[in-house]
């Protein structure tokens, strides 16, 4: 008797699940196009994720006011992943359950990677405004992945191209600070330099962060016959290195990364900073669309744009534009549109290459001139 009741209850529960599922499905296919927004919206990295929600909302409001896309209104489904890979898989599963056709996010490279497998199986376009880890696109494992930020190795590309092609350097010393970021950058540079004919990496070493002085390594650079130094790391070591180099009359070009493209570097290294090259994201603050996006944000939320706001704005515009151009919400059609159509964004006119990296987004070389970083053409 009791067993029977339990069985009945179980069957009832199962039926209700199926029914609810069907209901949810049915609703998803009716009148809106759903786009997910995933990333850290709480926790200590929330400042990286929240601007992307606001960017997506601004873009979607703009499109909806004009009648939406493909005759349907766009609906955002916002999910938090706290930048944690283990949470990101749940976030992704939830968004899949909501039948989103594309996702703006995730924010952190680790969380993005964890979520990507799920989206890939469900054929959902995923576009991150901020995940810079190179293999996400380059490995070819995630054909559904796109990003509106340049990957870490793109910076090394720009640096090496500038050093070899523009400055015509043949013998280069590469130093790094042994940290994840600095060493990664230096290794990318080293690998790229080795592919260039006639260019020699005369020195590749890590320096001791916080050492009392760097005279030994500077003597070593001088002795190696290097024509330039590429340094991967942050500005405190860079300013120590450059001032000691100049004091020792080692007047070779100093090239570095966006950890050094910081005004503190100029303040600390003072006159020795003059002439230093550093790569950094291309400055797009004067782009009319970027100015408008920032004004809209101020008007609606009364806030300054936070981290990756423009990248997220560009990602949302790119996704919706691709849906519009494809005339469909099918994965293959959107994918093809993203890779063939150019779109006007706050980052400039962009499209995507076969790996999913944005074409037209990237790094530029800056040089310290008269105490300020100037973007070189």
């Amino acid at each position: 008797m009791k067993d029977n009741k339990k069985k009945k209850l179980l069957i009832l529960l199962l039926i209700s699940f199926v029914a609810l599922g069907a209901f949810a499905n049915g609703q998803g296919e009716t009148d809106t196009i759903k786009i997910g927004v995933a990333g850290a919206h709480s926790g200590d990295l929330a400042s990286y994720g929240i601007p992307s929600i606001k960017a997506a909302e601004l873009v979607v409001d703009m499109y909806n006011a004009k009648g939406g896309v493909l005759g349907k209104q766009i609906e955002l489904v916002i999910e938090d992943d706290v930048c944690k890979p283990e949470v990101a898989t749940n976030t992704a599963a939830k968004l899949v359950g909501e039948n989103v056709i594309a996702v703006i996010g995730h924010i952190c490279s680790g969380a993005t990677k964890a979520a990507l497998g799920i989206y890939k199986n469900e054929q959902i376009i995923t576009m991150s405004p901020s995940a810079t880890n190179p293999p996400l696109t380059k490995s070819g494992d995630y054909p559904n992945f796109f990003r509106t930020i340049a990957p870490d190795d793109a910076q090394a590309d720009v640096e090496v191209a500038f050093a070899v092609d523009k400055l015509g350097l043949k013998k280069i010393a590469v130093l790094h600070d042994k940290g994840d970021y600095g060493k990664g950058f230096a290794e990318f540079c080293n690998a790229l330099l080795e592919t260039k004919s006639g260019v020699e990496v005369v020195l590749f070493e890590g320096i001791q962060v916080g050492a009392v002085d760097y005279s030994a390594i500077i003597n070593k650079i001088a002795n190696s016959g290097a024509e330039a130094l590429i340094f991967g790391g942050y500005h405190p070591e860079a300013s120590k290195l450059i001032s000691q180099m100049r004091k020792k009359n080692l007047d070779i070009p100093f090239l570095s990364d966006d950890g050094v493209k910081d005004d503190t570097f100029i303040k600390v290294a003072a006159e020795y900073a003059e002439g230093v090259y550093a790569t950094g994201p291309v400055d797009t603050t004067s782009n009319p669309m970027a100015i408008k996006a920032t004004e809209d944000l101020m008007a609606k939320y009364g806030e300054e744009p936070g981290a990756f706001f423009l990248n997220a704005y560009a990602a949302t515009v790119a996704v919706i534009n691709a849906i519009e151009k494809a005339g469909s919400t099918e994965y293959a059609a959107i994918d093809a549109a993203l890779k063939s159509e150019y779109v006007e964004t706050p980052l400039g006119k962009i499209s995507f290459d076969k790996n999913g990296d944005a074409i037209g987004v990237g790094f530029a070389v800056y040089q310290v001139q008269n105490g300020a970083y100037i973007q070189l053409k």
Partner: protein
Amino acid sequence: MNFEYFFALLLGGLTRGSIYALIALGYTMVYGIIKLINFAHGEIYMIGAFTALIIGGALSFTGMNPVLIFVIASIAAIIYSAAYGVTLEKLAYRPLRNAPRLSALISAIGMSIFFQNYVLLAQTSDFLPFPTLLPRLKILALIEHLISTTQLLILISTAVVMILLTLLIQFTKMGKSMRATSQDKQMAQLVGINVDNVISMTFLIGSATAALGGVLISSHTGQINFYIGFIAGIKAFVAAVLGGIGSVPGAVLGSFILGLTESFGTGYISSDYEDAFAFIILILILIFKPSGLLGRKENEKV
């Protein structure tokens, strides 16, 4: 073999060794007299550098001769740090003089963390530029790739400090009392030596040399922040142990060995292992001569 390169590394190693030596003196003297490892010593060095930065920065608005500013800033740093050293001893170590040694050691670590955070809050966590006060000497123009003005100054100042200190310890009444106190504190007290004064004096001298080291290195590298005392302090401590902690010539010898090892290690092997070289030497010495190079083996008193 490239002789010029060897010479540049040698001078670089001596410079680094000089800085370690100026700090290591404080460790070794304090240990020699009260058997305490003063872990807040690196922070005294850092405070010295900050004092010089503040005084130097303020004076540079007056349009005074930069070299004169440097001298005034150095003297101010030495006086201020010496006052810190003496106060540190009075507040944190004197009440614990008869407590177990471990208590004083923990007090020292506490003071180190306190000083770091105090400077962090009072100043900033950013790196600050140290004003360039010393002109580049013209006579060095040809060999500037071997040795810079600041390096030369470091070498000369260290040599002068070493000579003065040796004279003080060997030939003055205070030096004699210091040696006596380090041999047997109780006995020294019985023959009429004011042990408290001797200990204060030790902290004063040690802090003063550390502050001088701080000023010199800051003008050499051109930047400081609140954390510079930590690594420099640890290295100087290693140097003091290497030479035999408690022995003044030992600390100097250990410092130069450490500085030269790091410099030649970087120059001929790789800077990837710069810190490793220092600690490998330390381990080897401690295995084969546990009391350090010039350390005396102490007989336990019965």
